[in-house]
């Protein structure tokens, strides 16, 4: 990798040993601080996995490097650092399966591509069925997945018990477990590392990452984007502005007068104290609105469905913890003595059809990659790749053609509701 001519040191076992022995001095910064230029070719708003991946693929695949990524806080401070880091591709519609499978494939090679250990653990992912109708949907999903070449099958309670011995698969529970959709390539990843890896790679290609730089206005002249204004009073001109925000996507689009079919809901999650490893798959229950995985540090990470009303507040609620604890104990009664370490919330931009909004807008030069609801993180790489192609060629590539903003007024909704939004 080159950094505007100077080489970016590669991370390797050898460099680890060298630094461990005290040679080589301090580890260099993964990405640098720059004074903003007056003009860029592309300004990306939002320094999360979507924004940074878009910058990375613009540089890597299309040779566009005069890019600024503007982040109002620190990179990965929004949805990218607040999700539960679950990856999978066992969706229901062929379009959804193809899209997310491309994402999982990119994630599989990401550590090598970015020279950054993203700690992707393909430990298997199981979605529990608690009634006949969901078991039927699981069979349907498994067949759709197999046709697309995705490893996915339905397993019975005995096999579930073998994979997760602590699970209560008895018939005496309120929601007995009848089976599960098992998806071996699914798993968890270190979400911060994905953000840092893309940032480091984009930086090496010459992309400027400006943290603590909030966009407060976007200039439009005769229906064409000309630049952005930041909270510190700068004006940065650019013919292309990309909205890669989550939670605030409506507010950014409002700046150019593009209406969004989006409502912002908080999604809460929680993590326990660390314990010895006992859970090496991801367990999801749509009926109980909960998903559980154990991190490499030993903490159990719990997620849920979005809060019941729209809000930009990221405060946690006792109501959520109560409900979550009840649901988790329904699955694994042995966890009753575990203590929660902390809880948090992230903002989810929900669309009417639970599919994202990607591509062009009525304002020339203003692109969107928003409306990612509760499933944005797992789509980070493929979204970056597709958005980069969309920006470079001025039209959306086939893989995201169905996700345009115009589909709402034209009535072409993409119903990934059944599978894309766990817990809805």
């Amino acid at each position, binding site marked *: 990798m080159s950094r505007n001519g100077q080489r970016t040191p590669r991370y390797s076992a050898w460099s680890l040993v060298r630094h461990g022995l005290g040679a080589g001095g301090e580890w260099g910064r993964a990405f640098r601080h720059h004074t903003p230029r007056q003009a860029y070719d592309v300004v990306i708003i939002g320094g999360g996995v979507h924004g940074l991946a878009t910058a990375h693929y613009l540089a890597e695949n299309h040779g566009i490097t005069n890019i600024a990524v503007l982040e109002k806080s620190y990179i990965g401070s929004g949805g990218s650092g607040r999700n539960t880091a679950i990856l999978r591709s066992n969706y229901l519609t062929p379009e959804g399966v193809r899209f997310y499978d491309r994402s999982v494939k990119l994630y599989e090679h990401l550590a090598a591509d970015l020279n950054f250990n993203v700690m992707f653990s393909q430990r298997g992912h199981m979605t529990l069925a608690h009634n006949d109708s969901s078991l039927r949907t699981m069979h349907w999903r498994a067949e759709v997945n197999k046709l697309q070449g995705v490893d996915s099958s339905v397993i019975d309670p005995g096999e579930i018990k073998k994979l997760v011995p602590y699970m209560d698969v008895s018939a005496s529970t309120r929601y007995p477990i009848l089976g599960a959709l098992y998806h071996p390539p699914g798993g968890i990843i270190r979400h911060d590392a994905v953000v840092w890896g893309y940032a480091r790679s984009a930086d090496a290609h010459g992309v400027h990452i400006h943290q603590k730089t909030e966009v407060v206005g976007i200039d439009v002249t005769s229906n064409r984007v000309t630049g952005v204004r930041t909270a510190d009073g700068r004006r940065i001109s650019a013919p292309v502005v990309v909205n890669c925000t989550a939670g605030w996507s*409506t507010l950014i689009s409002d700046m150019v007068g593009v209406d969004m*079919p989006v409502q912002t809901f908080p999604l809460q999650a929680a993590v326990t104290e660390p314990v010895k490893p006992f859970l090496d798959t991801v367990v999801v229950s749509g009926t109980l609105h909960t998903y559980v995985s154990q991190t490499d540090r030993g903490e159990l990470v719990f997620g849920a469905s979005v809060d019941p009303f729209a809000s930009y*507040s990221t405060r946690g609620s006792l*109501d959520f913890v109560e409900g979550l604890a009840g649901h988790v104990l329904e699955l694994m009664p042995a966890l009753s003595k575990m203590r929660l370490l902390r809880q948090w919330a992230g903002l989810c931009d929900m669309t009417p059809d639970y599919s994202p909004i990607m591509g062009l807008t009525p304002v020339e030069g203003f692109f969107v990659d928003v409306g990612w609801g509760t499933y944005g993180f797992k789509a980070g790489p493929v979204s970056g790749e597709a958005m980069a192609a969309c920006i470079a060629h001025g039209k959306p590539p086939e893989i995201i053609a169905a996700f345009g903003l115009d589909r709402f007024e034209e009535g072409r909704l993409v119903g990934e509701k059944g599978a894309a939004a766990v817990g809805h």
Partner: protein
Amino acid sequence: MMLLTCPNCGARNVSEFRYVGEAKSRPDPETATPEQWRRYLYFHRNPAGWIKETWYHGSGCRRYFGIERNTVDNAQRPAGVTS
């Protein structure tokens, strides 16, 4: 637990209510074009700040009512009050 003030029953736990959504004016179904109707169905102002919205008190008076709520800090005031 967040409290929501019902005009009939007073402050109650928010779990007693169902969130209906932003208060919007409905286009006339007789004359609206499909595009106008879809805009009404799908598009939202979704502001970060005060918004007029509709809630339903399902566990109490079983009435729909309007309220203004600040979506940033969930502060509330009766609908119709302007700051």
